[in-house]
């Protein structure tokens, strides 16, 4: 246990050096060579983690320097004193102790935080808000594709890998829906046909013929068969994360381990979407959030450690449909709000800083029914990542009718 922790600390220090001093060190990390799909662009691999249910940004990253925070959250506010005291990020914000693994990455300079961020659409509906955010078009339902799908579309890549875009889970994320086929995947190890192995080859060939058309079902069938063939090779041996990283044994932890494995297999991954649900904490928030935050922090730390040798070329962003009401309710929970928080992690991120103007929590500063106002549009950060890290300057297609204002969160790709 302690050993792994030390290793991670050491590794974190190492990245700190690498990210801050890349120019000075004889640093010769090879670019991700996407072996069978060399046509993939040289931009970062993007990992998009959606915290479904509307995560409370005021608990994830608490404004300890705002007195109104403590007044609004008599039972839920983090404490700034004692054994359970929040870990300060700067003179104003702090994170709960359970997020210590994230704070270490923050301190190493590979994690940036944006506060009071979100979608400008006023909806308090989970489903509408998620939909708008994943389409990247707040308030606009006429564009049927997702923002990541449009990014992939305009990249005009020759990367035809079925793993170019991966959605972990049973249902494909809306952000990936569009003309570039994306692969929905629950688990690498289980992605194969079961039955009499002598006969399965014939069966697969017959399926390939039956699914050979160009309709939606047929396209998906072809993709499924291709995915299966490629994953058979990967699944043949157990996956050992690098650098002693240990993923939590949870669906989210396993999904992120799968993403890391696919990235390292160099089979053409450009984007991956992963979900972590359960953030809709209307009641008993303190019974629910610590477990989720623990899972989140440990998984991110494992992913970071596991991919340390590639981290310069990986950018992870978190999203959540909105934040939660500033004032807690009678059930020690919080209702739907507006602004929340975003994490941006990667080796080419200007981390170690909380970005965004703090709007304040005084009654006259709140939005709508008593919510944290938004001072950064989520598209500002995503747009910067898309342009600087994914090397796609066509932001007008990715985020139509909006001009993202960059905040200096990401460095330009070399």
């Amino acid at each position, binding site marked *: 246990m302690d050993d792994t922790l030390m290793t991670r600390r050491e590794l974190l220090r190492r990245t700190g050096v690498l990210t801050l001093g890349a120019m000075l060190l004889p640093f010769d990390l090879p670019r991700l060579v996407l072996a069978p799909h060399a046509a993939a662009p040289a931009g970062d691999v993007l990992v998009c983690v959606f915290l479904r249910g509307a995560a409370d940004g005021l608990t994830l990253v608490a404004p300890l320097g705002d007195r109104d925070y403590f007044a609004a959250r008599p039972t839920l506010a983090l404490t700034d004193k004692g054994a359970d005291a929040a870990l300060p990020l700067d003179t104003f914000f702090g994170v709960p102790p359970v997020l210590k693994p994230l704070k270490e990455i923050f301190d190493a300079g590979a994690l940036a935080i944006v506060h009071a961020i979100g979608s400008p659409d006023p909806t308090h509906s989970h489903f509408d808000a998620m939909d708008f955010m994943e389409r990247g078009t707040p308030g606009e339902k006429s564009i049927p594709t997702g923002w990541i799908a449009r990014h992939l579309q305009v990249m005009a890549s020759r990367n035809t890998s079925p793993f170019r875009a991966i959605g972990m889970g049973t249902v494909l994320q809306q952000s990936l*829906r569009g003309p570039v086929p994306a692969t929905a995947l629950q688990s690498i190890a289980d992605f194969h046909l079961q039955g009499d192995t002598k006969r399965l080859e014939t069966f697969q060939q017959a399926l390939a013929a039956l699914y050979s058309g160009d309709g939606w079902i047929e396209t998906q069938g072809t993709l499924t068969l291709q995915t299966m063939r490629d994953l058979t090779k990967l699944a043949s041996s157990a996956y050992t994360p690098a650098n002693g990283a240990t993923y939590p044994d949870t669906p989210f932890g396993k999904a992120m381990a799968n993403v890391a494995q696919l990235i390292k297999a160099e089979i053409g991954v450009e984007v991956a979407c992963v979900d972590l649900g359960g953030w809709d904490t209307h009641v008993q928030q303190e019974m629910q959030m610590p477990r989720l935050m623990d899972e989140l922090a440990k998984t991110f730390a494992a992913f970071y450690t596991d991919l340390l040798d590639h981290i310069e070329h990986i950018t992870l962003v978190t999203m959540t449909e909105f934040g939660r009401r500033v004032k807690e309710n009678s059930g020690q929970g919080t209702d*739907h709000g507006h602004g929340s928080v975003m994490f941006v992690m990667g080796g080419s991120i200007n981390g170690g800083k909380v970005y965004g103007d703090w709007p304040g929590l005084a009654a006259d500063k709140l939005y709508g029914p008593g919510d944290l106002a938004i001072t950064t549009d989520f598209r500002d950060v995503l747009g910067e990542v898309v342009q600087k890290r994914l090397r796609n300057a066509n932001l007008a297609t990715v985020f139509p009718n909006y001009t993202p204002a960059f905040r200096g969160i990401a460095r330009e790709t070399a």
Partner: protein
Amino acid sequence: MQLTRRDFLKDAMFATAIAGLPDWATALDESPPALPRFDTGTYPWHWTPPARSGQNDAIITVLNRIAFGPRPGDFERVQQIGIDAYIEEQLAPETIDDSALEAQLAQRYPTLKMSAAELWQNYPQPAPGTRPDPKTTPQQVITELQEATLWRALFSQRQLFEVLVDFWSNHFSIFIGKDQVKWLKTVDDREVIRRYALGKFKDLLLASAQSPAMLDYLDNRLNVKGVPNENYAREIMELHTLGVDGGYTQQDVAELARAFTGWGIKLPTRRAGRLDATGAGVFEFDPKKHDDGAKRILGIDLPAGGGINDALLMIDVLAKHPSTARFLARKLVVRFVADTPPDALVQRAAEAFTQTEGDIRQVLSVILHSDEFKHSFGQKIKRPFEFVVSALRALDAQLEDARALARTLQVMGQGLFLLPTPDGYPDRGTAWINTNALLARWNFALQVAANRLPRGKVNLADAMKNVSARTVGEVVDFWIKHLLHRPLPDQDRQKLIEPFGKASARFEMTRLPELVALILASPHFQYR
């Protein structure tokens, strides 16, 4: 705008013309009405519509939509009595004898008839560290409800009723894993969903609002004067009645939450460590927790002092609201007709909803007797539940229990009563056809056909005992008819023949499971 019939035929049918109808397929209807244009949206939300094959399409569409797919003999029966007669029969489930199934359910799943108090008392939360008989834990209550739902879909004669129960369970979706819900959802299923599935929407809505399972699931029982909880107030408007674009504001949500303050449940008590559930698990209104001030909701002024009538009045308003009529009409048409519903039919269904004050049976009658419905073959995709149940019905599978099936549905992403969010499972094909989903379907097809289903079996040879099919071509044709009930374009038929040799060669009967699995796994069996 609308395609003429000629255009449609040219595009959709002749392009994939069927080379010679087999004699069992009814010849193409001489004069199909102008076909509605099913615009399924822009890329990639379009299917390549399967080739049409005549009247068989209408019958199989009816059996896949108002039933969970045909059992052996069902197709022929509908062919004989006619589609409209079958629809009328199914619209009157009270006239259909289902006593054999009822007897089985009573014997297999005793929790179905219990009150919440009895469930609490008989299936208490195990004390930490103890390992009681699994049959006495709350999990048993969940399992019985899941299995019974599958059992009814598989074996009930009242198929349309079960389809509607599925529709409303999904519309008023409740996550059985939350808090007290595991002891409450069984009663919700019986006293809310099943009781009013074909009744008046207003009765259904009121019953749901006062259902202890819903009060717990959407936190309305915690919604009290002074610090309201908006969860239920929002979802009853967004998901249950008006729809998100139905014309309400955040202010309306906040005010409706106030109207609902004081609505709650009588919970069991603990005395000296012993649970006392007597009289527990029923709706109760606590005037002390109710915010009795004046309210203004959806432009309606509720004077101070309304008590429980605040929310009762608003339920009435929501049930009758024109947005509700449109929202539900559209959702029902999406369910029964097409992912992108024909506007004219939605309009007629909404009018029927308004004219009959939300009589669900009457609204359904409009939808099911419409031409749009009968000519909508290929416009819906089976969701996992429909895929699994229709495969087992088609093969007349004999099951000892449905436990493995409940787990399969979970793997496929449609676990029964297990969706944590209140929006219900999506009813559009695009959400259910992806790499993961197809793999799971193919594996289920292999599992069933090869008799690897735990505690269940199929007898494929038995299905063929009265037929003389011997060659590959004959056997493939038999199973196309038996499972799909419609002829396939010649090139698709060839794809099923090829793995088994020449059409004229003798079919190797040990490979029957492969053939059956292949048809179930093919795109053709994914259409609902």
